[in-house]
């Protein structure tokens, strides 16, 4: 499972990358929206999931979401990192079918839980991803035990 992380704040990018790698994901990082759009255009097929900030130079998170959903038509889940979910941004992101939001300062466990929840909702949970299993919702764990 390869996750593209687009975030222009170097410290947030570093901590998100570290958290995701620790949970067994392959991570591609983009230090701004422009680089993120290049990666999506050039290597979109390698990307299984995108986590993106909204406020970035060159290309905002909403513009990246538009690129994924409308222009490139990539069938990948997207989580948006925001400091504050304003109604206006949320309305636009919802219209472009964003899968989930994570508010900054982010909690790594919350981010990984939301990634797993989104993967499950989309029927994409990688069964071999044992590290990430700990973040599966408890009721799902019970289903597996049964």
């Amino acid at each position, binding site marked *: 499972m390869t996750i593209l992380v687009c975030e222009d*704040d*170097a*410290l*947030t990018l*570093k*901590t998100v990358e*570290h*958290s995701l790698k*620790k949970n067994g994901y392959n991570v591609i990082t983009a230090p701004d929206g422009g680089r993120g759009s290049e990666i999506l255009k050039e290597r979109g097929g390698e990307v299984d999931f995108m986590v993106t900030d909204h*406020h970035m130079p060159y290309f905002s998170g909403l513009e990246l979401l538009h690129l994924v959903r409308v222009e490139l038509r990539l069938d990948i889940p997207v989580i948006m990192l925001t*400091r*504050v979910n304003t109604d206006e941004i949320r309305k636009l992101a919802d219209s472009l079918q964003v899968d989930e939001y994570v508010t*900054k*300062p*982010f909690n*790594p466990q919350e981010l990984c839980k939301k990634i797993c929840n989104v993967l499950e909702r989309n029927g994409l949970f990688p069964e071999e991803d044992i590290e990430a299993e700990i973040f599966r919702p408890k009721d799902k764990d019970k289903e597996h035990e049964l």
Partner: protein
Amino acid sequence: MKNADAHTLYNLDYLNEISEGDTEFINEVALLFISEIPNKLDSIIQHAQNERWGEATAEIHRITPNFFLFGLNDIIDKLNKMESKLRSGSRGRDIINELKDVKNEFGLIVIQLKRDYNIS
């Protein structure tokens, strides 16, 4: 944390929690923190001094979560209050002075971080 003392101005609880005490990661974040943040604070002060209040507000909004990494709640409170004041229309010298106070406070933290992590 190296050379910790009772007067440490920061704490590593959050970084220790997310990295499970990975000292290499914490060192990298400390280095990034003291190389990135001073320039960003300077940029905000410049925006304010040149009355680019919209840019100043946006950059304060963006920089604030970074201080969470080192448990700098006092600075977070000050920046949040400043952002609220700017969003409600406050302008002028007081804001610039408050930004300079934050920069000075952060300067002391940088000195400690450089000492604790042997960063020159």
